[in-house]
């Protein structure tokens, strides 16, 4: 649990640090997407603890960075939004979240849903990546065609969703601390 907490804490710190650059510096977002994807998949490997899923996640953790790097070399300019890899990452993470819920057997452990820290973290992840999927996919279009005010509306919505995710993470950490 401690290891998982450290990993997630690192994810948070890196996302916050890189997030501050994200506004000005788009190339960082390309790398941030990769790091974030790796951390979240590592989290799922530890949270699910199923051999086949762990193996599958290792493969994805190898394939996704390669795809992402190929994308900014050959497909999308590194100074544009990385809408393809970010959408793919979001879809993959949504898949893992849904798998986590379908695989959830909390009732068998006689533990209430709210007392399981991972539930809060997965909920936060699912809410953020699910809701922001369209924002990721249309980010280049927004950047090019939208007026500044519309662009900011979406940026605020995205920031709000990030905040919701971190709030849910916080609740998860609080429960983890109490365990």
């Amino acid at each position, binding site marked *: 649990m401690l290891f998982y907490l450290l990993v997630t804490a690192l994810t948070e710190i890196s996302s916050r640090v890189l997030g501050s650059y994200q506004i000005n510096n788009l190339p960082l977002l390309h790398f941030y997407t990769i790091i974030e994807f790796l951390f979240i998949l590592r989290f799922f490997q530890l949270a699910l603890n199923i051999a086949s899923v762990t193996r599958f996640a290792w493969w994805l953790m190898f394939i996704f960075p390669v795809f992402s790097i190929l994308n900014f070399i050959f497909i999308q300019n590194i100074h544009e939004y990385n809408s393809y890899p970010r959408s793919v990452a979001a879809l993959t993470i949504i898949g893992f979240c849904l798998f986590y*819920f379908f695989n*959830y057997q*909390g*009732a068998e452990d*006689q533990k*209430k*849903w*709210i007392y399981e820290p991972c539930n809060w973290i997965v*909920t936060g992840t*699912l*809410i953020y990546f*699910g*809701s*922001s*999927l*369209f*924002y990721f996919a*249309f980010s280049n*279009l*927004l950047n090019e*065609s*939208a007026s500044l005010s*519309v662009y900011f*509306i*979406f940026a605020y*919505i995205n920031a709000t*969703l990030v905040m919701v995710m971190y709030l849910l993470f916080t609740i998860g950490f609080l429960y983890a601390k109490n365990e």
Partner: protein
Amino acid sequence: MLKTSDNIFVLLLFCIGGVFMLVVSFVLIFIRYQNKLLMQQQKIRFAEAAHQQQLLQTVIESQEAERKRIGEDLHDDVGTALSNLRITIEMFDQHEPASFKTNCKIIIDKVIRDVRHISHNLSPIGIELYGFIGAVEEMCESVTLNGRLQTVVTNHAGDFPSMMNKTTCMSLYRVIEELLNNTIKHADATLVAINFERDEKGITIVYNDNGRGISPSSQRAKGMGFLNIESRLSIINAGYVIDSTEGNGFNIRIRLDTLTT
């Protein structure tokens, strides 16, 4: 392609809002479902615990009842006979030694009979002597001799008792004894049929009487005798099904899957 005046950004906003709502509803429904599941499991667990406690209570109560009965038997039969013997010895009349001898013999024989009766009740010696089926038949015979109840024991299961251990034999014997007691006390029946049947997996004991049967409501409110039966059967991992309606006799099928239990 048809041109549209729709604002793509408004549509995008709808998409984000829609997905957000879907995800939140999914999580809420999931939590509700999990909580329901948890509550159901807790209910089942509580019911099981209560039932176990009730069974334990019955075991303790029946132990106490048994002790009381033994105490009463000893006091009323053996104690009284020995007191009689004492009085007879005290009143020994030298002129009538033959009558004294006969009186003493009668009383001593009564004591022997009473002690044997009590010890047979404590541990049915019949099982050791005649085997399980023999002991059941002997018990049924004594029931038939003592009252107007006819009993028929049919064994289609062959020599199954040799595959059962002593505890299982004793438990089944006690269960049949309790069933017979229930029939005598409450059923007002004239005929009891006990069948032993066997298949590859185990044996089935079918107990039938032609008495007044029991209503479903009284099936739920089990008496001490029945809880005793249940606890004995659960110890030997046997299952049972009662098929009885008021006025149509009582029928119970006891299923013992592994003969080695």
